[in-house]
């Protein structure tokens, strides 16, 4: 069971959290929505990365403070490399 450091509450067991989805997928602006093709919109909606390595993802402390935050997690080792707040860009990390 993962131990995730909520940016507010500190380390808590995985079962207190809910996984959202890949982080840093910006919602297209209205202008972009109105000019982008169906294929581009589908890409925003459905296409997600599935790396073997560091994955940037969004979690919420569902059973705790209910705050969303970003996590850089290694999908092979399960190591949580970094926890960082919403709105902050993905950190530059050495690929392990």
């Amino acid at each position: 069971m993962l131990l995730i450091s909520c940016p507010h509450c500190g380390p808590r067991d995985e079962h207190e959290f809910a996984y959202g989805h890949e982080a840093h997928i910006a919602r297209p602006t209205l202008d972009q929505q109105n000019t982008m093709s169906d294929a581009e919109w589908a890409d925003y909606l459905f296409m997600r990365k599935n790396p073997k390595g560091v994955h940037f993802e969004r979690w919420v402390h569902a059973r705790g403070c209910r705050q969303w935050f970003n996590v850089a997690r290694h999908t092979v080792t399960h190591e949580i490399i970094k926890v960082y707040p919403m709105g902050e860009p993905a950190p530059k990390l050495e690929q392990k």
Partner: protein
Amino acid sequence: MAEAYTRRSALQHFGLTAAAAKSDVAGAEIVIGESAHRAIVNIRGNSSDAAFIAAVKSVTGVDLPVKPNTTAQSGAFRVLWLGPAEWWVVTTGGTEEKLVADLRQAFAGQHAAVVDVSESRTVITISGASARDVLARGCSLDLHPRAFGPGQCAQTGLTKANILLDQTDATPSFDIYVLKSFGDYLWQWFWLIGRDYKFAIKAQ
């Protein structure tokens, strides 16, 4: 309001008063009970705004606990940290309407919110030398005195219910705030786990 006798606590149907009368609280390893009908008011606001902190203090006398998972008390008012912009003000039951009104007035002009949630929760109290052992059956938090103590609170899970856990003294004693719909489940869970301990029911 209707006559008081028409009001029921979430766990009243378990016959807690009668059970408490028969309980040996002094010889118990854990003592559990229901502390019903507390006034619980959810407040939201910006804790980096001095005006917000001042407003809370003006109504409750409490210095807003801005450190995560802590509580602060002043007189009858206890303020519990729920999130970076969310707290509960807990006080004597029956005063919630006035508290909501006072807080709304104090927050006038700020982006803040006040919501009465008194009726949504009941409180199960657990106290005694084995209280931590019992909670460890369903709670993954480290409640060892080196890690958790009076003045700390946490929203977490207890078995499969979501709770807010507030340690009220070093006995240790805990207040467990739980949605009323989960009240039967959680109370019966305590009975289930408690059978391996000497446990007593405490009257409210």
